[in-house]
């Protein structure tokens, strides 16, 4: 084994040290924001809850700073992080209770040396579940909860304990190439929480099954390598976490949230400022903004995904045909797509919606049509490159038909750029959805969708600005998450950018 003698280099390649700084800066930023918000400038009073949060975050920041110093000292003296320093991560785990996901996940990663992708998945499955319980738990302050609330919450608590146990087991027993045989059934059980939207659990189960079966060493290696690359990018991990959290929240929201709070008018509680009963206040019809935003996530994700999947399938197929056959086919397809490409996406969407009326289905179609050419171009470029490789030639020499060459050999090998492109454009689709709804051209106005909520908020900008601020923040965070994850994915899948 090579010994790295340069202390500075050692600091640089030690993931825990870099992540400590990352956690440090984010905790510091949040404590600063809490400090700003803790004082109400209009009424010249202090908000005690926010001030407490600020103090906790500040303490966390100082604690992480202390840990980073410890790590530095450890590396200088003994070239590796001492067990005592690793144990310092335990108190950090509990910061999840005040919502500090950064320091909590850092605590988990610090404790153990054995950081397999499965361990990271277990951490985030656990954290996602706790946050879901916390967010759903806010409904307890409402006058009543839905019938399925208690059942759902107890299920979530059971799942959380399960993930907690898995966390310990995975940390101790699973290595980068191996998992004990008896973990196979557990892995299968872990696939089911997908029904609650917890994709991390699914990924964990999938990884465990792969390693426990121990059949194909190269595929385990590939899996390990790809995820290690993606997971080493902290921003990408948090992007993925927020996407899955939002997804999970929108899957479980019908079980723990009452749709009536989001849509039924309640004239006794019009334009209330944030309280425990209405965590983000109410709008001009007395509807709970918090429930509306939670249900809005559903629509945004559905439209965002559909408006990405549909054009990537259509555009991908056209691009593949165009790139594979070349010449006349290529010319005809690409010239026709040039026409679509010349009209800006939003304008084309407005024209289509003008013609067919504003509703969710038309919105999805309108957004999809506009983005077909970009996908077709991406696919075409990749397919043209891959068609020249030897394995395609050998498939042809063996007498494979054109369609089997395209769909069995070329397309699977050219999916990576498409996946990256799709991840990076889901964010754009989410923005377009809410922009069009804001203009009154998207989702029907009675459905709680982020753009619709903002449209109401914009009329109360002067008096009740929180109505416009919170939904906008949600849009931004979701889009930002997709962009961060997409960037991370691109760096991991495309060796050229490294």
């Amino acid at each position, binding site marked *: 084994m090579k010994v790295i003698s340069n202390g500075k280099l050692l600091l640089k390649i030690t993931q825990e040290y870099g992540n400590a700084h990352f956690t440090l800066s984010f905790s510091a930023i949040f404590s600063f924001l809490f400090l700003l918000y803790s004082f109400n400038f209009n009424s010249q009073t202090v908000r005690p809850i926010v001030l407490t949060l600020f103090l906790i975050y500040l303490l966390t920041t100082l604690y992480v700073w202390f840990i980073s110093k410890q790590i530095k000292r450890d590396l200088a003296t003994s070239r590796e992080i001492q067990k005592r320093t690793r144990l310092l991560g335990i108190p950090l785990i509990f910061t999840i209770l005040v919502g500090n996901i950064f320091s909590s996940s850092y605590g988990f990663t610090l404790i153990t040396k054995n950081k397999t992708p499965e361990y990271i998945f277990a951490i985030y499955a656990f954290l996602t579940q706790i946050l879901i319980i916390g967010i759903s738990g806010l409904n307890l302050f409402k006058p009543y909860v839905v019938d399925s609330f208690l059942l759902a919450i107890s299920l979530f608590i059971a799942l959380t304990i399960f993930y907690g146990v898995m966390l310990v087991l995975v940390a101790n027993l699973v290595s980068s190439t191996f998992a004990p045989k008896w973990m196979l059934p557990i892995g299968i059980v872990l696939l089911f929480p997908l029904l609650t939207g917890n994709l991390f659990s699914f990924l964990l189960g999938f990884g465990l099954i792969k390693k426990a079966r121990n059949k194909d060493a190269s595929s385990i290696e590939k899996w390990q390598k790809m995820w290690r690359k993606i997971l080493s990018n902290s*921003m990408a991990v948090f992007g993925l976490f927020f996407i899955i959290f939002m997804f999970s929240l929108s899957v479980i929201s019908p079980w723990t949230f009452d749709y009536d709070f989001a849509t039924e008018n309640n004239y006794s509680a019009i334009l209330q400022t944030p309280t425990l009963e209405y965590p983000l206040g109410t709008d001009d019809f007395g509807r709970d903004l918090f429930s509306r935003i939670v249900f809005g996530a559903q629509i945004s994700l559905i439209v965002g995904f559909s408006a990405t999947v549909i054009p990537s399938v259509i555009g991908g197929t056209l691009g593949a045909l165009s790139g594979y056959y070349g010449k006349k086919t290529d010319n005809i397809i690409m*010239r*026709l797509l*040039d*026409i*679509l490409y*010349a*009209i*800006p*996406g*939003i*304008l*084309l969407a*407005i*024209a*289509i*919606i*003008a*013609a*067919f*009326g504003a509703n969710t289905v038309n919105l999805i179609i309108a957004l999809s049509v506009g983005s077909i050419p970009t996908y077709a171009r991406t696919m075409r470029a990749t397919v043209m490159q891959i068609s020249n490789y030897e394995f395609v030639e050998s498939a042809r020499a063996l007498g494979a038909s054109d369609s089997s060459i395209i769909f069995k050999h070329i397309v699977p090998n050219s999916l990576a750029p498409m996946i990256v492109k799709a991840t990076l454009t889901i*964010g754009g689709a989410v*923005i377009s959805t*809410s*922009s069009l709804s*804001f*203009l009154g*051209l998207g989702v029907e106005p009675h459905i709680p969708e982020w753009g619709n909520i*903002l449209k109401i*908020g*914009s009329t109360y*900008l*002067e008096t009740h*600005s929180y109505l*416009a*601020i919170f939904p*906008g923040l949600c*849009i*931004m965070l979701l*889009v*930002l998450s997709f*962009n*961060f994850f997409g*960037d991370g994915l691109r760096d991991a899948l495309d060796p050229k*950018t490294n």
Partner: protein
Amino acid sequence: MNQKGITHSSKTTSIFDSTFKKLSNRRSYMMLLFILGLPVHIVTFILFLLKKEQYQQPYRKAYENSKQEIVSKGYVEAWKQQFLEQENRKASFFHESLSKEQINKNVDLLVQEKLQKEVEKQVDLLGLEEYTYQNFFIHLLQNKKFLIVSAIPGLLMYSFLLLYSNPFVQFIFERVIQTLFVILGVATLVFTILYISPLDPARNILGVEATPEQIENFNQLYGLDQPYFVQLWHSLSGLFTFDLGTSFAGKEDIMASIANKFPVTLEIAVFSLLMAIIIAIPVGIISAIRPNSFLDYSFMILALIGLSIPAFWQGLIFILTFSLELNWFPATYNPQNWLSLVLPVVVLGTSLTASIARMTRSSMLEVIHEDYIITAKAKGLNERKVVFQHAIRNAMIPIITVIGLLFGGMLGGASVTEKVFNISGIGSYIVDKQFIPDIPAILGGVVYIAITISIVNLIIDITYAFFDPRIRSKMKKEG
């Protein structure tokens, strides 16, 4: 003087016949040339048929001679043996059981092919060529007198040949044709979308109580009762003669409204673009020179936030802070007050700035690792010189293309910003008109924006070909 004149004319004739030779190898171009110069071609084709007997003779004779020569020298037998062996080996490799007859047939075919090729080669060495119409016409084109006589009836064909004689002119010509095709396609597409709309503008304007006669009258007035192609023709000719008639609601002249609103949008878009370029390119360059530094991380996270922020929300937040709380800028647009332009320009330019900064960074990073940069550094140039004289110029090419494409997206996205700041630009005009739907107004708005974008991209492409030596040399090679 005389000498000069002759060389000059022989040069132009060589342009015509060499371009004709080049183009006539491709069937579609040959057809086009034939159609463009139809009057000339009818006369020359009759001449060609008349002289056929006279000129075909020497070529045929030479062909027969060299064929006999090759056969008599016994080459054919040798080839036959060779091919027979080849075919047998092939059959045994693929485990095919072919009858002797079949193999002989294949061998004969191969031998004939080879013989023909060899003979043609021999004849070619003698300087004779087959008497085809193509060759006949090329000979005519080399004749100055023929050119003068046929100049007027063949004007179209000759100008086409002139266009294609220079690869650069050819590129511009093809690019312009392509743009025209796209513009026509866009107009047809948008019209078709609006035509198949299930919504009824007449009902929306006249109200629910309108009698069938009133609706019929309305449809007749605006030509909505006519068949698809008639309406399409009206719309297209309206678009290209700048006369779209009056809008359904309000009866205002559509062209006048668009002409009023377009400059407003364009003004904001151009200022946003300027802002984006001024901020983004230095930011991208700094990030690329110091990759993975604190500055780089902060810039890139800021850029990503800029990409992720919805324009209308950013506009609302800006109005909230800068207009309502701080009172620095007015909340709505007013043409007389330049301060009111600041917020919309910043909002519209944010995502563009972010994209350009990211693009600049990645493009610069790619260039910085090229060999010629290492050479420049090894030469002892200081970093400033390397970056400014060698790296930036090469990194700019993809950045400019991206700017051209994003500019289009920005014009399209302007409608949202315009709505937030209450600007009466073309974007908010389209949005206002879509509720009816006011077909000619929407058509005009969308198509004119698309045309603007296409022309901007056309200009960028052509300027590129003009300035980038790599593209020019590639064109010459292909041409």
